[in-house]
């Protein structure tokens, strides 16, 4: 049996309001994500059935979505879900070595969970952080620019229950970088950015031609206030 908490029902309504009233199906993915967070990292079948009722679709529609996308876990995962990017840009920067390090340190193979339920290791496809390779995603957080030593330090910190805090920009490059500027530092943007209106085209070029409020009428838009 599954139901959203009262607090989460508020979020459910927010989500449903984003999409047109006759296309509730669009909310399936965000609702599955919400259910996954509520259940601690995985989506039980009961949650899928509940979501099917909320969006007024047959349960198969939700099952299809849940099995298609890789981020939905249909079995329990450990407290720290390690997703290691293994695609070629990270691979040539040493992600296989990182995988071996994790496997040896935690004594599990890729795809398995540690016996104490703390870590699950999975190799996933490109995580979109290629200039900071190699990297892993731990639950929601990106730990980038890993080396063998920093990976082991990270795992040890997690075992103690205190994974390192994210950096200023929502990810943590483990080699001291701030974000995407590279280990040797940035090579551009040393000057102050131009302020508002600098380099703006001349005023003669910007004489208003139309009233945008009329465009809606011209287009014959039946705009639904809902």
């Amino acid at each position, binding site marked *: 049996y599954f139901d959203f908490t009262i607090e989460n029902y508020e979020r459910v309504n927010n989500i449903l309001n*984003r*999409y*047109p009233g006759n*296309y509730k*199906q669009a*909310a399936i993915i965000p609702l599955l*994500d919400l259910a996954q967070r509520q259940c601690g990292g995985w989506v039980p079948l009961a949650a899928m059935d509940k979501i099917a009722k909320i969006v007024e*679709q047959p349960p198969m529609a939700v099952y299809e*979505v849940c099995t*298609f*996308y890789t*981020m*939905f876990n249909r079995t329990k995962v450990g407290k720290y879900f390690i*997703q290691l990017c293994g*695609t*070629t*840009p990270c*691979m*040539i*920067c040493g992600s296989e070595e990182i995988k071996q390090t994790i496997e040896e340190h935690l004594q599990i193979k890729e795809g398995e969970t540690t016996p104490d339920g703390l870590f699950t290791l999975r190799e*996933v*496809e*490109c*995580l*979109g*952080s290629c*200039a*900071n*390779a190699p990297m892993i995603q731990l639950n929601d957080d990106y730990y980038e620019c890993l080396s063998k030593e920093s990976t082991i330090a990270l795992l040890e910190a997690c075992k103690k229950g205190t994974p390192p805090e994210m950096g*200023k*920009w*929502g*990810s943590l490059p483990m080699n001291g970088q*701030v*974000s*995407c500027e*590279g280990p*040797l*530092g*940035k090579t*551009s943007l*040393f*000057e102050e*950015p131009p302020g*508002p209106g600098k*380099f*703006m085209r001349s005023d003669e*070029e*910007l004489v*208003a*031609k139309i009233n*945008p*409020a009329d*465009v*809606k009428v011209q*287009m*014959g*838009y039946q*705009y*639904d206030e809902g």
Partner: protein
Amino acid sequence: TNRRENKMMRALHRLSRPLLRTTTRASSAASSAAVPAAASAGRLVLVSRKAMSSSAEVSEAQRNVVVHGGLKDADRIFTNLYGDGSPWIDGAIKRGDWHRTKDLIGMGRDWIIEEIKASGLRGRGGAGFPTGLKWSFMPKVSDGRPQYLVVNADESEPGTCKDREIMRKDPHKLIEGCLVAGFAMGAHAAYIYIRGEFTYEAECLERAVAEAYKKGMLGKNAAGSGWDMDVYVHRGAGAYICGEETGLIESLEGKPGKPRLKPPFPANVGLYGCPSTVNNVETIAVAPTILRRGASWFSSFGRKGNHGTKLFCISGHINNPITVEEEMSIPMKDLIERHAGGVRGGWDNLLAVIPGGSSVPNLTKEVCDTVLMDFDALREVTSGLGTAGLFVFDKSADMIKGIQRLSYFYKHESCGQCTPCREGTTWLWKVMKRMELGDAKVEEIDMLEELTRQIEGHTICALGDAAAWPVQGLIRNFRPQMEERIAQYKLSQQQQQQKQGTHADQAYN
């Protein structure tokens, strides 16, 4: 015959490589008053001359060639790329976003579309379709259905990490772009589809959207312009195929992200069956700056047909993996040496570069010496600019293993709808896995190429082509290495059997 063909193709490529020559441009610090001064006057030039023939026509052509690169900071659009300022609305306004948006919108839809067309902006998401043209496909008069702008922030192409920088460091550029582009195409609502793994970036966007609503930049009478605009952020859940235009629309509608057949195109039947346009984050984010600074400013960068600036993500075996904004048509060597710290071990240690995200064929060092980074130049050498996510292999890299892993990526990400892709990517990967060991026959290389030609162009969406091209590039450029590996494996098998003392190798041959 294949090998003879390849030799001929290689010779033809060498002949058609662009010729570089010194040109000095008189520094023009003060340009005419009518056009805003382009700050990068007197651009840096390289000295290099390839002596091919002494005909008069060739020298005439050489004299007119200009070298691009060395973008000045004042010409950069993404001024908060390394996070020196605040990403939120106060920082954005200080950097010039949301400045006189009302006046830009007051110029009208046609003016905006003409400006974008004149600027030469081409889609930054990989396909390079002219953006102004794409926006002009949207119906001018509604037939009762609302129209939507859909922003593709599903950055899953291996090698690409530029959209996340825009979304976490400068989200207001994207939001203002949504308003301006949405108005140009008659849309009152924009959906930003961001990949599920980017949780922090999605939070940034949500916060920036909330700020924009609070300040009156979105919602009814957005930015005081008279146009209503709503922006919604939708998170995906981990599928590369949802970066494909119609796959994204299917995913936004709450279904598995399986691409649709085109026609009908999204401008006729798109999101929720309504006319919609899908554009990449970078394309939308540069639009307000183009409108503010002028189309002629933007088209002053890059060669004809490849105008503007681009965010390049350089990764792999280099000394300084970085995301940097540079001018289009910059020589690849210049880009890597100036911004990425050069190849590990020096330029001569370079083996190959994949210039545009994993879906384009690789380029060998001799091509990389002189090729320019833009759509047309890379297409001429049978590759492509794609998303401009370069990854660099030095001589220590195993190309076959790299391409094998890419084949696995495509197999994993195939949605499974159409047979050539579903079966083809699996088959490709299985053969590539054997090629990595060398456990194959030499004839199978030709069979592999034939297989890629059967997948390419016969699928519903471009993932089939994207899976086929890296393998074609590998066979075209690294065939000797593949054959060598096969021979080595055969030799090691024979030696092993001899050690075991059986005479089965006679049957093996």
